[in-house]
């Protein structure tokens, strides 16, 4: 069986019970991550969520030590997750407090908390390695995630926490939108900006904690940030941004987990993040709304339009044209022969361009502030923007002006 066959099996949930469980769990995780991440992204708090995720490590290690000392196996997942949530929350509160109560800026507070908590976690992990308990192996997988040996109970934990995150997003969508767009206005309408910010970061915390097992704490922030950033290319509305981001997160999680289970030894977290990055790249390039290719195409068309109009006006006024792009544009449109003489079509188009310019100057005089005039680029054919009646009215006004002068 080739790797490709195994991948197809994994993608169609045919690769065995555990792979299917992990793929579904990762999809749910991605769903929650993308949805919750939308507000983290809109409120520009990506770095804070990175501090939160790194602050989970000492919690995982401490929970393991406590459970091992109490005589348990030390690897009971809900216990480990609870421990990670506690230290992550402590880290979050310290960042909050430092940014609000001291003169330190938030990025300095983030840097301090992130590195100190992560360092503490690594030290505790080495302590665990010297402990007699033989079951410590595997805690390292919380760094980069793994799909090995997932239990149905663990999938339930992810599903329930993911549902809680989704419910929180739905309940708080208006205050969170307000705070992300205009915190001053939000305050005056009675929204508590600080509490809303904390709620956004609690969302990030929930996703981080349930993502520890599959994606790992180092890369989980990517699952919060990349999907909404990619989704932003496709939409100009918050509601659809949340849905698209959640969808992209789910796809990343599902496909990433499938690839990881098809090829033994490939860590899950990095693969999921890379899939999310591919979605981001496609969005960046291909989105018709804000994508780079669409923007380049619009820009190119616009240049041609500008050169064509400039060229036609020059023809109409009998001015010489030197610009190469202008010349080639006119030639390609059939307005000019190769020897530089205007064709019949060129002469009539030039006359029309001259007339449109005069019409627009008159329209601007009339109501410069009107939505149609304010938007007009001066290049689109005038018939596409104004009604025949409006054009006739402009022509009458122009005729009167000519008589007057």
């Amino acid at each position, binding site marked *: 069986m080739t790797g490709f066959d195994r991948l197809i099996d994994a993608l169609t949930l045919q690769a065995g019970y555990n792979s299917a469980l992990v793929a579904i769990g990762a999809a749910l995780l991605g769903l929650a991550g993308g949805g919750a991440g939308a507000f983290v992204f809109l409120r520009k708090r990506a770095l804070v969520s990175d501090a939160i995720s790194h602050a989970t490590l000492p919690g995982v290690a401490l929970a393991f030590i406590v459970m091992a000392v109490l005589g348990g196996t030390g690897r009971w997942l809900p216990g480990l997750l609870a421990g990670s949530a506690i230290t992550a929350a402590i880290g979050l509160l310290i960042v909050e407090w430092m940014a609000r109560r001291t003169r330190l800026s938030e990025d300095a507070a983030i840097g301090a908390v992130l590195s100190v908590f992560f360092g503490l976690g690594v030290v505790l992990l080495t302590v665990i390695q010297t402990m007699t308990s033989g079951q410590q192996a595997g805690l390292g997988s919380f760094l980069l995630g793994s799909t090995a040996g997932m239990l149905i109970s663990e999938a339930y934990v992810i599903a329930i926490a993911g549902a809680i995150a989704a419910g929180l997003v739905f309940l708080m969508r*208006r205050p969170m939108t307000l705070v992300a767009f205009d915190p001053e*206005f939000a305050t*005056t309408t009675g929204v508590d900006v600080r509490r809303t910010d904390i709620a956004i970061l609690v969302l990030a915390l929930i996703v981080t904690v349930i993502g520890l097992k599959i994606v790992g704490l180092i890369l989980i922030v990517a699952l919060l940030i990349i999907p909404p950033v990619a989704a932003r290319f496709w939409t100009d*509305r918050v509601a659809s941004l949340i849905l698209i981001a959640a969808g992209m997160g789910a796809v990343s999680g599902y496909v990433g987990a499938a690839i990881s289970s098809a090829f033994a030894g490939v860590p899950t977290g990095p693969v999921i993040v890379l899939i999310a990055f591919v979605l981001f790249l496609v969005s960046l390039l291909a989105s018709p709304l804000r994508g780079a290719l669409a923007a380049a195409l619009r820009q190119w068309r616009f240049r041609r339009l500008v050169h064509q109009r400039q060229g036609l006006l020059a023809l109409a006024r009998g001015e010489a044209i030197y610009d190469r792009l202008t010349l080639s544009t006119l030639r390609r449109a059939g307005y000019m022969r190769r020897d530089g003489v205007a064709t019949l079509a060129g002469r009539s188009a030039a006359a029309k361009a001259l007339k449109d310019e005069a019409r627009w100057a008159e329209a601007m005089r009339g109501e*410069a*502030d009107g*939505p149609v005039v304010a938007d007009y680029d001066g290049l689109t054919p005038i018939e596409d923007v104004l009604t025949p009646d409006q054009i006739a009215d402009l022509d009458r006004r122009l005729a009167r002006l000519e008589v007057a002068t």
Partner: protein
Amino acid sequence: MTTAIAASPELIVDAGRIVEPSVAAESPLAIRGLTVSYGRKPAVFSVDADMPATSMTAIIGPNGAGKSTLLKGALGIIPTVSGEVSVFGRPFAKTRRRVAYVPQRASVDWDFPARVIDVVIMGLYAEIGLLRFAGWGHRKKALACLERVGMADFADRQIGQLSGGQQQRVFLARALAQDADLYLLDEPFAGVDAATEKAIVDVLKTLKHDKKTVVCVHHDLSTVAAYFDRVLFLNVRKIAEGPTDTVFTEANLQATYGGRLAATHIEDLQLGVG
């Protein structure tokens, strides 16, 4: 707190100055001893102010005088060191629904994923509540507010495509959607074109006509007399407050702006008789 403010409507002699008699217990906005500080230097120090109902007040003063800070402190947007604020005779927390605030348009990121109509509907959030979806009725209401500022044709535009003047009008439409009784605007005329300025002034005058109260942080001295019936001179401390006719005088301008005001300008300002 209310007892201090619910003073008799007769003349009150306050530290030797005569305070306007029109301040009733239900004053739309009454500020007492408000001090706001960034660090250890007060930006606004012990300011008293009373905005009578159905008035249009300009808060004027030089850069860094604390004009915006006064509004933000009064509305709890930034923490205050001392002072009391009452809105329609009650604490602001209990009268939020009667107040609409228009921040400086530069204070938000206009690349935010929202259409013009979405921003105006934000003014209806308190009415819609947390769980309900915004319905057709809300959209119609928001469109009517956009109509009043001349922006109805832009309802489905992305807000990032708007000019500065259009952004300001969208913010005003959002405040109109709140259907408040007291409107507080932070520099609504900053960096807008003449057409927008006229559109905004017309809306504000309609509000006054509808018995609403309007307070603007304002920086253009040449339009104070034409737009506003009251002025509040501020330079960290309150210099003077009252009807434009009597308070908008050269003496108060000099006291507020000091040497920063060119004498040649003063002649053009339609000063009050003082």
